[in-house]
């Protein structure tokens, strides 16, 4: 017999919803971290030749990395859109 029916029920509901949110947030964090490492790896391989004369990035390399990251995200978006369209068609 509780005098707080909504309090008890909603706190249980909150706990379940929060667990789901937390799982989603964890999954999203994993995806973002994975994307980050893929970008770093791919753009490092493409833009930075294995000649280590100077420790700092010179102008060509930093411009290349800017462009590489921008292209990666754009490719990501386009592929996502194409996939979504395919999903809607099928």
């Amino acid at each position, binding site marked *: 017999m509780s005098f707080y029916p909504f309090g008890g029920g909603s706190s249980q509901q909150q706990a379940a919803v929060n667990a789901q949110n937390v799982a989603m947030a964890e999954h999203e964090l994993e995806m973002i971290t994975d994307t980050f490492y893929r970008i770093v790896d791919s753009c490092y391989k493409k833009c930075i030749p294995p000649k280590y004369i100077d420790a700092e990035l010179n102008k060509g390399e930093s*411009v290349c990395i800017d462009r590489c990251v921008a292209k990666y995200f754009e490719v990501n978006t386009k592929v996502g859109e194409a996939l979504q369209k395919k999903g809607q068609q099928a």
Partner: protein
Amino acid sequence: MQMVQDSCIFKSALSGVLGFGLGGLFGMFFSSFEMTPYNPAVYEQPMKQQLKATAKDMFQRSSSMAKNFGIVGALFSGTECIIEGYRAKNDLYNGAAAGCITGAILAAKSGPQNVLIGCAGFAAFSTAIDYYMRRE
């Protein structure tokens, strides 16, 4: 701060200032060999006049060389930075192209043949120096 230091305008201005300073020093050094309007009558005059004439020649020589070196430095560095920013690569071709453009601009008043010679010469010089600096 890093972005400002990486920008082409900053690099060009820095090269211009350094070229200006270096050109001033070179001008003072070269003026010690002889005075440019060769005038032996100067050496008959009293000491103070000689010093004034020498100082004037030194100042003229060093300021003209400083201006030339400054312009060359700013031009070369600016064009190299722009070309490198466009290509997004860092190799010897940037210096060669920038040298060609700078040599061509410097020789622009002397006719088309001199423009080609200036381009080739400055490009070769710049590539040689770059190659030497990049050896591991």
